[in-house]
């Protein structure tokens, strides 16, 4: 007993030392922003998340013009008032955007902690449901690190996360909002979950589809084996009719509970009204909410900016004939929506995993993807590391991710700077990247779905 306690203590200590190391590593990198030049990389900062654009929007607003003038800024007006002053503040002799970089480091650490807490909640729920199925073994003691710790470390040490954190983009904050939403739903803090969902939807639109996993989380509780297993168990136990076990039989998960869901809807409405009011106040003199919607959500949905990124849409819409454009816009966006319903039906007993799959799919098909999105779903994947047994393809996928993330800057250089390549070179890496994401999400959701 003493020994296990000690080992546990040691594990916790090593976890925290890795967290501190990751923070120090980020702080070191922050001091080389010019040399690394990450903020200019198309993989890191998209038109939606680039801090340079945010600074421009803030400057426009300071000189009493609409921040959306000139199609530079496409983010939320709230970010403008919160982060804008940070872009102007400078300390002599320090890197330009020191304050913002520090803020994104804090956001990353917060996200990691929330992932860890979510992992703990999931772990508890999982062992509880195993207990109720009578399958409990000494699962807890034999583990290396709990899945929450692993997920948090994966999130913190993922090169994608580090690059987005150092590369002056607002993705860490968007990711924080998404994770906040999931954490709130897992720990049944309805107002928090609603806040996270509203903010993340407000910032980047795509997390709106997370409402389905959140509702499941609140209604059914966290991930558990399928309900028919419980029914079977109950049935067999009834056959056995042994009184001693009947006493020990824990409560079975009950059906869908509507109360927290209604609370959630109420809170979500409240928060969204609140956010909209704040936005309209901040944009009162300019276009108002109408302008905000067209130049944020409209910008996302109509794919106006065709500058290269790691997604597939820019290339496609640069090539497509104008009169087909609307048709293909619908096709691409419906692509995400089509997958929502079947997955929701099949995975309703595993809402957190469902959220992971949704995030992976939307980061694959969204109009301006960046590596920050991959950082988010790879971090969430860590939550299921103990449950997804036998990840045969993990090594292959790992090599693929390493290869693509190194190849993409090289191809970009070949196209833009050397002039010996062309757009197809860069798009080829984007295609490979998309394939990897498809493989990852399909490979890991297959054992759950099938």
């Amino acid at each position, binding site marked *: 007993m003493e020994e296990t306690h000690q080992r546990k203590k040691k594990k916790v200590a090593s976890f925290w030392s890795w967290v501190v190391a990751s923070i120090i590593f980020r702080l070191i990198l922050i001091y080389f922003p010019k040399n690394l030049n990450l903020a200019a990389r198309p993989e890191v900062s998209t038109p939606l998340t680039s801090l340079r654009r945010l600074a421009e929007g803030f400057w426009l607003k300071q000189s009493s013009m609409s921040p959306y003038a000139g199609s530079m800024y496409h983010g939320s007006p709230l970010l403008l008032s919160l982060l804008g002053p940070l872009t102007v503040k400078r300390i002599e002799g320090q890197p330009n955007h020191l304050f913002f970089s520090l803020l994104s480091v804090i956001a990353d650490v917060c996200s990691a902690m929330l992932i860890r807490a979510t992992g703990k909640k999931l772990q508890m729920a999982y062992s509880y449901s195993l207990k109720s199925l009578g399958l409990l073994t000494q699962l807890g003691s034999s583990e290396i690190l709990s899945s929450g710790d692993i997920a948090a470390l994966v999130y913190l040490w993922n090169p994608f996360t580090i690059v987005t954190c150092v590369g002056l983009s607002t993705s860490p904050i968007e990711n924080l909002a998404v994770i906040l939403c999931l954490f709130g739903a897992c720990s049944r803090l309805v107002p928090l979950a609603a806040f996270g969902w509203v903010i993340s939807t407000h910032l980047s639109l795509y997390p709106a589809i997370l409402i389905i996993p959140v509702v499941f989380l609140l209604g059914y509780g966290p991930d558990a084996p399928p309900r028919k297993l419980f029914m079977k168990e109950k049935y067999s136990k009834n056959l056995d009719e042994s009184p001693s076990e009947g006493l020990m039989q824990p409560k079975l998960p009950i059906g869908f509970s509507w109360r927290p869901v209604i609370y959630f809807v109420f809170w979500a409405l409240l928060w969204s009204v609140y956010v909209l009011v704040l936005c309209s106040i901040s944009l009162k003199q300019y276009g108002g909410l109408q302008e905000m919607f067209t130049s944020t959500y409209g910008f996302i949905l109509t794919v106006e900016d065709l500058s290269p990124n790691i997604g597939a849409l820019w290339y496609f819409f640069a090539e497509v004939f104008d009169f087909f454009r609307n048709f293909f816009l619908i096709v691409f966006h419906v692509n995400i929506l089509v997958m929502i319903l079947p997955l929701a039906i099949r995975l309703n007993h595993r809402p957190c995993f469902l959220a992971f799959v949704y995030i992976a799919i939307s980061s694959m098909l969204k109009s301006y993807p960046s590596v920050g999105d991959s950082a988010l779903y790879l971090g969430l994947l860590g939550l299921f590391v103990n449950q997804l047994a036998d990840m045969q393809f993990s090594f292959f996928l790992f090599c693929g991710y390493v290869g693509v993330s190194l190849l993409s800057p090289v191809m970009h250089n070949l196209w833009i700077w050397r002039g*010996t390549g062309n757009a197809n070179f860069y798009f080829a890496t984007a295609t490979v990247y998309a394939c990897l994401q498809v493989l990852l999400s399909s490979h890991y959701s297959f054992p759950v779905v099938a």
Partner: protein
Amino acid sequence: MADGKSETPTEKETPKPKPRPILRLVIFLISQSFLVSVICCTAGVLALLLLPVLAKNTYISENALMPGSASPMISNQEVLDGNKLVEDLTNLNSKYLDGGIESQRIIAKYMSDLGAEVSYHKFHPQSNRFHPLHLFSDPDSRAQENFSCSSYGINTIGIIRAPHGDGKEAIVLATPYNSLKSDLGESFSVGIAFSVFSLLSQVTWLAKDIIWIVADSRYGEYAPVAAWLKDYHVPKFSSLSSGNVEMCHDGKNLYELKGKSITGDFRRAGTMAAALVLKVSDRTEELEDTVSIYAEASNGQMPNLDLINIVYYLAAHHRQGFRVKVERLWSLLDCSLLKVLGTIIEFVGEVARSLNPEWKFGIPATDYVEGTATLASSLYSQALGVPTGPHGAFRDYQVDAITLEFSPKFTSDMKVRHNDFFLRGGRLIEGVIRSVNNLLEKFHQSFFLYLLTSPNKFVSVGVYMIAFALVIAPLPMIAASLYISANNSNSSLKQDKSTLSPYPVADEHSNTVRSWRWLNAAKVVFIIHLWGAVVSLLPYFICQIPDLTSTTSFLIWVLLSVLSLQVLYSILASPFPHANASQPQEGDWALLKSVTISALFIGLGLMSVINFATAEIGALLLVPTCLLARPLRLDLRARSLRSFSRVICNLVLGHIAFPPAAFLVVKGVFSGFGSANVGDFWNWVESLWAWNSATYLYISMVHLPCWVLCIYILIHTC
């Protein structure tokens, strides 16, 4: 997965469904990986040797160029003007010792007499210091260095505005000229350029501005052109950055130079369509007048093939009487092995032709040997990543440029031959400029990625990539088969235990750990690559120590590298907590090898995109080393002929693949083993980083770590 778990026992009884055909193919390849890799590697080497046979004739792919469609207009009058300039310059050299400023003034006067806009450009030679982070940033964003006022050079630039142009495009002529100590060749090159320039100042067909830069080559030929291009493309707005050049000129000299139409302001003329660097060599051993084309820019970049095609087409088909040459490795011409190969290929070609006259793939043996020598030289200078002349500076700004080096056969005192030579050289250059002048867009039609096997034969990227792909194709296959076998052997061990263990979930858990076991190997590989990065940064600090000979620097480098390897390994290589429990397992080295091979595959794949030649040479060295690596202890235990020969191969390859050893062997083969010493390697590496060559990064971050990992596998205890 909890849901899947209940079904696993039933699945084992039912026969496995047949996998899809593509999966079956992959499984077949992986199971036959040894045979397949031997075949692939041999085929790759053969394909490389066959490249001269597969080379295609060049053709002019851009229709707008229309080379040679107009008759040359350059006449004796221009040639006489050029000759006069040469005479003035040579007289000046004999008269003044410090003729530096004077000769520039003469050139400027000649230019402005033609009605050109003339300006001077003052520059400081960039010291080629190694800065590690510069390799990653683009040239524009580099920080300004501090200059001393004592050393600077002056470029003279003349611009002719095109009568039909809008000033948005330009063609550049560059002639390196050392005003302090000029030889006749440099004067001649200025003379030829002036003849062309004076013609172009009169013609009406010009649509692009002509810039003629007489680059002050007292600090080397590359530096002045690079400095001028940098100022041309990166306008300086703040006085801080530009000030230090202009501020410290000693008032008298430069102002004396300035006349009515001559300024020290920086003048520009549109984007550059192409650039020609002219040189005349003093060597007269040639039997006929020749033009040598130098095209390799930094990191193996080549100008568009069309530019070379024009020169070849004009020189060969329009009877200017020049023989066009590209560089070749002379020592390969006497190589008897190549001659034998060439004869075999010729014979095979003849046999094939006798069977079916349609098959024409054989080439004469001499052609084959020459093509191979040219190809080898082309590969070598691309692999070095060091530009072969001032044209390299243009490529950094996406301007296609080549150096044309004329070698006349006359001795310098024959006046009549001078005029003839000037006339023909001038015609060639005029023709090239006229073609480029016709261009409507940038050069884009023809190839950028190619290797030359002779001035009119090339191997395009689609062909030479096959050779490379064949060499590296075994890597992923072997990696996959090793990974699978390591996992399977492990699981079979576990199987026996799991029958005893009453807890299915514990087995499940060990299953999870097993499938993540490669992480340990990946960590080792990562640490070694991290060490490679550290090694690549060390010279930066070693350079700070003053007064070191190259040999001691090299030794310090090696010492620090070994030390840092020790430190890194002891800090970071503590295995993950769960690995303590399980003893070092049988499959460990196989997993390590699998991860190493994957890392090598990624590294070589990346390098082949950045610089093909480096990747090809590196692959020829490293792929066999990595594929054959196997713990020596295992082989010695086996005591069979096969394992013994493998040990020998491993030992030989393990020695050769070490970069300094490989360098010394190559150097020894080409210039005798007596002269080779380890200091040379340091000097060579120094030249690589001075030119920001990606080959340096490749050697220290891909090649060296993979070699260390191979050695690690060889001495692995199991």
